[in-house]
């Protein structure tokens, strides 16, 4: 008996639906936690990150 025989008769089609439900549940968790009021301040700060290149304290010449 080959692995494909076992798999063909194992009735696995329900697994795909379980995966879909799990993915959807996880997605809903992501949505909820993204919009949680407690996160607003942190995310607003995060949004500013690209605009901050760091505090320049000195200059150092580099041979090109």
């Amino acid at each position, binding site marked *: 008996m080959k*692995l*494909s*025989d076992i*798999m*063909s008769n194992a009735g*696995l089609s329900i*697994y*795909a639906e379980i*995966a879909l439900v799990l*993915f959807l549940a*996880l*997605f809903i968790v*992501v*949505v909820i*936690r*993204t*919009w*949680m009021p*407690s*996160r607003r301040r*942190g*995310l*607003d*700060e*995060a*949004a*500013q*990150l*690209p*605009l*901050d*290149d*760091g*505090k*320049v*304290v*000195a*200059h*150092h*010449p*580099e*041979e*090109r």
Partner: protein
Amino acid sequence: MTHALPAAAAPALGPPAATTLERFSYDDDIVRKFLFATLVWGIVGMLVGLLIALQLANPFFNFNTPWLSFGRLRPLHTNAVIFAFAGNAFFTGAYYSTQRLLKARMFSDGLGRFHFWGWQAIIVSAALTLPFGFTQAKEYAELEWPIDIAIAIVWVAFAVNFFGTIARRRERHIYVAIWFYIASIVTVTILHVFNNLALPVGILKSYSIYAGVQDAFMQWWYGHNAVAFFLTTPFLGLMYYFMPKAAEGPVYSYKLSILHFWSLVFMYIWAGPHHLHYTALPEWASTTGMLFSVMLWAPSWGGMINGLLTLRGAWHKVAEDPVLKFFVVAITAYGMSTFEGPMLSIRSVNALAHYTDWIIAHVHTGTLGWNGFMTFGMVYWLLPRLFQTKIYSKRAMEVHFWIASIGIVLYVVAIYSAGVTQGLMWRAFDETGRLAYPDFVETVAKLMPMYWMRAVGGTFYVIGMFIFGWNIIMTWRNRPAVYDVPVIEAAPLARSHEPVVVLPEPQGVWARFRDARWHRRWEGAPLLFTTLTILAVVVASLFEIIPTFLIKSNVPTIASVKPYTPLELAGRDIYISEGCFNCHSQMIRPFRYETERFGDYSKPGESVYDHPFLWGSRRIGPDLAREGGKYPDLWHVRHFQDPRAVTAKSIMPSYAQLLTEPTDFGGIQKRVDAMAMLGVPSGDAINRAEAMARAQAKTIAVGIVEQGGPRGLEDKQMVALIAYIQRLGHDIKVQTAATPPAAPRGGTD
């Protein structure tokens, strides 16, 4: 230079954990290197694109030279623009933004240089192998196994450098652009490894370990996600960094960007099978692919809106700043192609568009518009910062913007028209119920004006590239004698990121959930984050791919389908190395207009011995799945020698070299053995493949002479290729004729 300067004393106000501040600088040298590589390969890749566009408008441009023929150059074009142009552009932006977002120099300058030179060496090796016929025949994964191994090594070096930088970061929160980079790096690794699993039979030759339907499934799982995780997510990361930079304000909604990210990671990986609608792929797989593709529309447009609205309050700047102009068109093109992608994935739309130029138009809206314009905007924004001088010519930027925009419009309008025209002509019936255009070449000749217009559009875009290059070089020439390297000061990341003021532990499950400390912990753990991303990608992949391998009903076998004879296998390898699959499909869809034209529709069981599968994705010429037996051997000799001597309006390159190039009989046994190792029942051929091949070649060569053709072809590639072509679709006819399975034509000696 050193990148960890002596630490300075901390200011008095710092938190207790950060008693010292660290000093460091960013490595911009590597960014400059990648920027130049982007320019050089962009010009090369697009010039090759222009050449193959001209070849379709007039076969003269194949110059009767094998290594300049369309079939061999088309993969060079796609590889050069995807992996060399867009790849180097992604690396340019990623090396610049990652360091600044994480407040850390790259983990290792040496690994960065290894990544740079390694990647360029891979591109050079692609240019040295693809035109000479060394190919795995899988779209965007054509490169042969030694180069694939090199890609894996260089990619891992990049990943180590990237994750090492994350580990050493001085910024707790990992900005969303970095998430997109992480997803791209890990997913491309998985895709590359699994799609390229092959059995080598020589230094530059291998056979895919998968066959037929399974190989097709793996390939388009890879192919679609190469678009997703090489051309989409990396550039979205760039968008989320450079758009706020250029607009001088934060992204419109950071929350939306998080949602954008997770939706793409969850959904993209499922969408691949929409490339195989109405083929021999099981229907459930194609439906899954379609549904996820349609769902992708929502997050893609969420991301587009997020990008465009980042300009809120700054719209007046768009008129003055060419960088923003490039970004606005790029994001609009992202919106257009991510609307069109889901639409094309709907089966009934796909029935019309598949195998036509519509797909080529769709792809070029995405690549020329989204990837090209994102790159141009980003590079123009970087130039004054990297070369520490003003941009040489703002006017040239404007000219570049307009000429490239006009180029895109000319290109896509022409090719959309060509696609719809050809799709409609294929399916047209006349009033008597017969095909209105039974001769395939009629549907090709009709496209010539549009192919010329495409070449004009492409020329505009390429001229834009030269203006771009000139502006870069002139700006670079004005650079200072010595680059100024700012020294940055930042606190190292504390081991714990709990708030300094300890709050009382929240009571109850909901309170703990709302407090969201668990989440901050989670977010601070890039390793866990990466693992979750991998999990989403792998789980989705397994659920979609495993059933075709393990559930028997997905690939029903057909008793009359037998393996190729040794000579046919050799001919098939010539078919592969000439890139015939770039223009000819071998997959007849179950529509009346297809079966009328080409014969019975293709079944999954027909390609069980096809390592790799050769279903193709475009019909510049007719489908060949049932080509065997349609014409006598001599017809094929004349046709390969000079296609226009047989079909006046054909645009196929001439393959006269097949009359003189010798067949590699000596190497046949090794190839048959490799097939046997992959599970192909080779029978007698396992012991005497060469003798069998020679005998079959002799039979065919004698037949050609009897028909009035040239002598002495028995050891030439022409005969091997004809043996393969005449075998196509042969076995299934044996079954329908209800006769016992006969040995393939000329298969025994």
